[in-house]
């Protein structure tokens, strides 16, 4: 029996609100992606690559401590809005303020010569920003499962958020790269410091404003137990949630592709010497990615979630190898690099579009599985841990990538008040390799855990049917306790 029928609880209005909130979050986080952040701290703030690399590593380890704790705190929350929505009401304002603080650093400390003070500012501003982001991001992701017990509602909410956030992230990237080029080419007489301060303010107001829509317009529709799980219980449940452990393991292995983000930025900045060329390369991939959305229901009918994830990993590794050798001798030539990278981007865009929806659904399925096993839902800890391991590995790979820069012959020196790059003989080739080939091969390791994943087909249907009955009983208990 299908307990869902044709019913929906989440209308287009709420799904759009969540989607635009995802867009706001994407707008704020685009400049903080590892590649831009590394460039921001080294080139704009003028900090030594070693210090930046160490801070990224430390921040990743800090996430290891605070992410699961914050997830547990969120799981213990009980308010009249639910356990997740309250955080979506509280966090947008501090998130906005800390974004301006982070990107305003070079401007605010313009007259300060001490590298030690700047390094301290980097640590404090980034770690506080990251902390606030976790308090915002974990409940936001958790809402994809708590917004409705029905899979079709969750799929719609996740699809809208992925679609809109992709477009908005593209807009944020366009703005950032265009402003960077306008500054560096002398088209607009503003410094890179001012560019990033401007980006910080626009992100805070526009991005933060959109993000607040989640707290205002979404609702929680899953009955939570009245009992608040302890922090230890939350972790114990996680360890026994085998499907979630497999997803987390895969995310860890996949996130070593953080190398991709760093070297993408340096490839366009230092090899092709035109940041905004990335926008041209992203256009076909962006269009194809958008065009993929209508096919997702058909893809889900043909393949289960596990099969989709496996296809995703194999596709990316294959296209990485093809594109690396296609541009092997011509990676400094725009005429060759542009079409090759467009192909890479198209394939990655197609598989990532599907994968981003599927992977969030799979975490929701794992949370449902554990609710059936233990009676407790752990959206907070589950999403915190699944993203934290990804962030940790991404921080480690960003840290490694930034530390590798001097080893491949790339450094910066100040000439006439501007940061100018200094490159070795093979620097460009190494950047090409670390951009196109290495991340896709490392990313492919993420396929391994999925061979043991089993929340598919009839097993998944049975879990959902049993949960529907269990929730009715829980609700009846809560209502009779009230009377």
């Amino acid at each position, binding site marked *: 029996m299908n307990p869902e029928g044709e019913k929906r609880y989440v209308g287009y209005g709420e799904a759009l609100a969540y989607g635009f909130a995802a867009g706001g979050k994407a707008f704020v986080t685009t400049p903080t992606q590892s590649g831009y952040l590394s460039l921001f701290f080294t080139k704009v703030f003028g900090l030594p690559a070693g210090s930046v690399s160490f801070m990224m590593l430390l921040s990743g380890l800090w996430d290891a401590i605070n992410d699961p704790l914050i997830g547990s705190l969120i799981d213990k929350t009980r308010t009249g809005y639910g356990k997740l929505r309250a955080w979506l009401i509280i966090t947008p304002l501090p998130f906005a303020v800390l974004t301006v603080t982070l990107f305003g650093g070079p401007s605010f400390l313009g007259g300060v010569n001490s590298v030690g003070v700047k390094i301290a500012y980097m640590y404090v501003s980034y770690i506080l920003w990251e902390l606030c982001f976790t308090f915002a991001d974990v409940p936001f992701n958790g809402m994809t499962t708590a917004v409705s017990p029905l899979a079709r509602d969750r799929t719609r909410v996740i699809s809208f958020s992925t679609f809109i956030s992709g477009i908005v992230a593209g807009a944020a990237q366009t703005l950032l790269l265009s402003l960077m080029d306008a500054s560096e080419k002398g088209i607009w007489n503003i410094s890179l410091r001012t560019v990033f301060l401007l980006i910080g303010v626009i992100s805070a107001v526009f991005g933060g404003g959109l993000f607040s829509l989640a707290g205002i317009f979404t609702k*929680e529709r899953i009955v939570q137990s009245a009992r608040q799980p302890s922090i230890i219980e939350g972790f114990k449940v996680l360890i026994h949630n085998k499907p979630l452990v497999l997803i987390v393991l895969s995310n860890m292995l996949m996130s070593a592709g953080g190398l991709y983000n760093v070297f993408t930025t340096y490839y366009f900045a230092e090899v092709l010497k035109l940041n905004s060329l990335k926008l041209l390369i992203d256009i076909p991939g962006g269009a194809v990615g958008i065009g993929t959305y209508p096919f997702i229901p058909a893809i889900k009918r043909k393949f289960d979630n596990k099969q989709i994830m496996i296809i995703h990993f194999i596709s990316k590794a294959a296209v990485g190898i093809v594109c690396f050798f296609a541009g092997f001798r011509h990676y400094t030539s725009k005429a060759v690099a542009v079409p090759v990278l467009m192909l890479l981007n198209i394939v990655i865009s197609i598989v990532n579009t599907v994968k981003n929806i599927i992977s969030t659904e799979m975490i929701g399925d794992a949370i449902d599985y554990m609710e059936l096993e233990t009676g407790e839902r752990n959206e907070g800890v589950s999403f915190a841990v699944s993203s934290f391991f990804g962030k940790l590995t991404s921080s480690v790979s960003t840290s490694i990538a930034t530390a590798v820069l001097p080893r491949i012959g790339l450094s910066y020196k100040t000439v006439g008040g501007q940061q100018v790059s200094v490159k070795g003989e093979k620097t460009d080739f190494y950047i090409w390799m670390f951009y196109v080939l290495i991340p896709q091969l490392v990313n492919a390791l993420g396929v391994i855990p999925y061979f043991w994943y089993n929340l598919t087909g009839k097993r998944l249907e049975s879990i959902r049917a049993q949960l529907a009955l269990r929730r009715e009983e829980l609700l009846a208990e809560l209502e009779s306790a009230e009377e």
Partner: protein
Amino acid sequence: MRKCPKCEKRLSPFYFGTECKHCGADILYYHFDERLEQDAAKAEVQEEKVQRLLGKLPFLRKKYKN
């Protein structure tokens, strides 16, 4: 404007308590099933509006007819 689902008295958007401070009702779960059905009815209305709108687009008319 946020209201208690039982006594319908106004609640501040910054009030995070689980129970209404006027009547003590559980704000989140009071008549939960009925409120879910209200959400389902609202969602269906929105669904019909969107399908009527999509049915006006030439390349989607066939799919969304009716």
